[in-house]
């Protein structure tokens, strides 16, 4: 029987400090928006950015001094993985707020609420990263998605945006139904909702179906084939900063849950679920990359490229080892900077030329050398070209897969690198080789420039000097080293080198 004991001590509340602070700050932003007459919305953005920054510093400080623990009967847990994902989510939110500023100026209504909703989604995703229990998975998932339903349909005069919102909503609710049904099945079979208590349960069909349903619901979040159908239309229709946000933060948060669920609760059934991830990974990579070739809209191209990238991430899930989880964490970090950077450039261009068609990127190098060079770096990082971050991320994932001898997955993954090179280079060709139809130079606002610079810095730093970040990812997932026994021997360096 489960009983809930809600007496909280001061030290318990400390674990929740970042979330509590963010909740208060969100309300402050909303109150300021309503109570201060004629407030410039740019200032509201900076107020929100300040709040996110403070939260980020808080979380990093927690990581530094090693604050760990769990609350509410293990429903909420703060450990290395949670902190890592919270940092990813907060950095994503920060960059999204930066790239939103110019975009929000175009809105007719509800400029202040936009920032509130972005922060609310971020808060929901921070809780997701800490969910250690099926009930909290459901609640936090819905909480974070709620903000997105509104955000996707924010351009209410634009039919595409409404369509995107509706599509996202209907499929999202459907996924929520699947999730709830899966949870009920799992609870019926195991009698518990907490991941760590499920480890010793015997396998049964009910449990298997339950987890496949939960996987489907989370697969919807991360946009894995065959649960991807909402992605291209929603990405294209949603306001671009929201697309950027959707393309990384919810994926990260859902992956946190996936990692916990499969690496902890289902560790003993690994031989069975590896196949699930192998199939989903191959399908996502191949489908995403091949369909991306035919795209003419940059947002759709990035949507399909995102599907393919998630396929790469799932190679790490299929490896199912500590090395695999390290690789996933590191890969998400590289994906964060490259992908958000690319969206920042897309916003910079579309603010000026009012178009997202790849055709309109012709001669971008002549119109804005800065944006073109940044886009080049981000796309090549997504393609996995050294010395950029994406290359290290891909290599790390491949090493993890090689240790588990997943040859099919490796071969498909490597072939997909070549396929993806083609469509990324087509965009590069438009930017660098083609001549512009309209040679006026493009100007970029300061906050957008800041976001692009952060993206460039992250992409280069993670590619050239990834050691501290790899070490960070390794230490964040220490909890998995006991739960999943690595089959391959740990790297033993030769006495010559080690001595």
């Amino acid at each position, binding site marked *: 029987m489960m009983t809930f004991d809600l007496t909280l001590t001061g030290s318990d509340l400390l674990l929740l400090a970042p979330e509590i602070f963010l909740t208060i700050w969100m309300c402050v932003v909303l109150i300021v928006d309503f109570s201060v007459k004629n407030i410039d919305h740019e200032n509201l953005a900076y107020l929100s950015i300040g709040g996110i920054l403070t939260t980020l510093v808080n979380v990093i400080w927690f990581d530094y001094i090693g604050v760990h623990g769990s609350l509410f009967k293990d429903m909420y847990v703060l450990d290395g993985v949670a902190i890592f994902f919270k940092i990813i989510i907060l950095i994503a939110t920060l960059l999204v707020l930066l790239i939103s500023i110019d975009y929000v100026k175009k809105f007719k209504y509800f400029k202040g609420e936009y920032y509130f909703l972005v922060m609310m989604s971020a808060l929901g995703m921070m809780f997701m990263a800490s969910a250690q229990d099926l009930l909290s998975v459901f609640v936090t998932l819905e909480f974070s998605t709620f903000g997105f339903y509104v955000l996707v349909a924010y351009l209410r005069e634009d039919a595409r945006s409404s369509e995107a919102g509706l599509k996202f909503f209907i499929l999202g609710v459907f996924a929520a139904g699947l999730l709830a049904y899966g949870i009920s099945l799992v609870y019926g079979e195991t009698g518990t909702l907490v991941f760590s208590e499920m480890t010793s349960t015997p396998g049964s069909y009910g449990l298997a179906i339950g987890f496949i349903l939960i996987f489907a619901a989370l697969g919807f979040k991360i946009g894995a084939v065959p649960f991807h159908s909402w992605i291209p239309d929603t990405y294209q229709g949603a306001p671009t900063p929201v697309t950027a946000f959707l393309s990384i933060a919810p994926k990260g948060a859902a992956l946190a849950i996936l990692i916990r669920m499969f690496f902890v609760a289902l560790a003993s059934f690994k031989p069975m679920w590896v196949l699930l991830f192998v199939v989903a990974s191959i399908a996502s990579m191949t489908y995403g990359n091949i369909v991306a070739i035919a795209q003419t809209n940059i947002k759709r191209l990035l949507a399909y490229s995102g599907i393919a990238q998630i396929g790469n991430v799932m190679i790490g899930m299929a490896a199912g080892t500590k090395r695999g989880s390290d690789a996933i964490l590191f890969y998400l970090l590289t994906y964060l900077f490259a992908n958000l950077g690319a969206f920042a450039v897309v916003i910079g261009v579309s603010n000026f030329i009012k178009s997202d068609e790849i055709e309109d990127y012709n001669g971008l190098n002549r119109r804005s050398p800065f944006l073109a060079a940044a886009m080049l770096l981000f796309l090549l990082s997504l393609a996995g070209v050294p010395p950029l971050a994406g290359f290290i991320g891909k290599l790390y994932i491949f090493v993890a897969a*090689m240790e588990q001898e997943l040859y099919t997955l490796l071969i498909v993954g490597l072939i997909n690198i070549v396929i993806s090179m083609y469509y990324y280079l087509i965009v590069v060709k438009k930017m660098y080789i083609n001549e512009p139809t309209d040679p006026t130079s493009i100007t970029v606002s300061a906050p957008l420039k800041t976001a692009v610079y952060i993206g460039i810095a992250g992409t280069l730093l993670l590619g050239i000097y990834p050691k501290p970040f790899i070490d960070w990812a390794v230490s964040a997932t220490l909890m998995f080293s006991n739960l999943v026994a690595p089959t391959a021997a740990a790297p033993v360096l030769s006495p010559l080198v080690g001595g």
Partner: protein
Amino acid sequence: MGSFALLTVLFAPFVGAIALIFVPTRQALLVRMVAAASAGIALLASLYVFMTYDPNVGGFQMMTHWWWSEELGIAFYVGVDGIGAPLVFASGILLFAGIFISWHIKDRIKEFYIFLLILAAATIGVFMSLDLFFLYFFYEMSVLPMYLLLGMWGSHTKGYLSMTDEAGLKMRDSVKFFLNFGSNSKEYAAMKLVLFLSAGAVMALMGILLIYHFSPVHTFDILVLREQAKFDGMLGNIIWLLIFFGFASIAPIWPLHSWSPVGHAAAPAATSMLHAGVLMKLGHFSIIRVAFEIMPEITRELMPIAAVLCVFSIVYGGFVSYYAKDTKYVIGYSSSSHMGYIFLGMAALDYISLTGAIIYMFAHAMATGMLFAMVGWIYEQTHTRDIPSLGGLAKKMPFLAGAFVIGCMASIGMPGTVNFIAEVMIIVGSWEKYPFQVIVAALGIVLTLAYLFKMMRGLFYGKLSPEFEHVSDTRNWVDRLPLLIMISTSIFFGIFPMHFYNVVRSTVEPMLDRINQVAPVIVQSTTGILP
């Protein structure tokens, strides 16, 4: 000092590229000076590396070792052996020459030099990597700048430019164009190059990952791997084939060569020089560094594959060159034919032929570098690469005509140039094992003579077309310096080859002893380098 010089060769172009980002585009002269300065520093440092490499000590020298990720067993580990040192030197020369060859580029000169410096630095990085990860890292890094250099500053072929009717224009802009293997726009050439080389690279990466996984020590360190890793049977053969064909695609060996002449033709002169001069050698070099060093037994068993394929390379490349009408296609196919000689020298697994093959890499870099530079100048002056429409240029370009004769002589392998030494060594060394191939190679030299003289006659002699009355010779030192450097290097080492020979031999000998199972691996002292 040695290791510092080696790092300077690698990082000077990178630093130059980064410095160029901050130079205002309007100051074109400053841009050129910064690029030339960084290339000059790299050239001097590479000369120092090559001259101070001690052949009496042998092995890897001037090493630097920094941990990059201990978690994955990756270190930034560089150093040169007798194979890497001359190739680093060749890259230094061609980069420096390439900067001056491109002196007159007007369009986006800053970006051009940035990409050129990154390309050269990445190839130099491959030649000094002692870590499989960084070998791949630099290898893949050298491919991408090629795309932009070809696409942005390259030139279309005559066939493409003549597609001016309505159907042709439509064809040129369609997606299908990229799949149409007949018409060569520069975009097509660039994309083909990148996709071919990336496909080869991921094959090699699969091999590298298999080596990493199945070696007893999970490391990318080549020195540790060659001592401790042992591969045999099916797995060993698969790894070897992945490594060989993965890297041979850039070399390029016969069935995988089709990207190369197209790429040469589309590229601007400096890029063609680096491409033919050093980029293609990355393939041979990486095969030697990975397959020969780590898997000597399998190399002995499977290297005859190269001996078979090299015949096709030599003959096919030679004949296409003879019939080609585009100056750059002639030299491009001739390069791809000459790469067959290197494969022949490698396949024989003989001291003399392998030493010859490595000297040939250097010699070919100089000879082809010269030819591409001169053809590039002619294109810049006349805006055509079509041999039949050119002629009589010797009257207008006396200096260039003279230099072209020397370039052809070097390419054929006239005594007095370093190519002669290399060719003779390959032919003498391979005779015992592959007499048939040697006969083909010797006939290939005759073929080289034929097509180069044919092109020379077509370009420089005969009647000067009135539309080329305005063309001019290389006038000042900026234009002549790169040619003079390459010519003098070629002739200097043709007359004084002993240091060169000793350097190469010091590495080739122990390597072949291992491959022919005469001696075990010489454990190299790494005190002071490894932590």
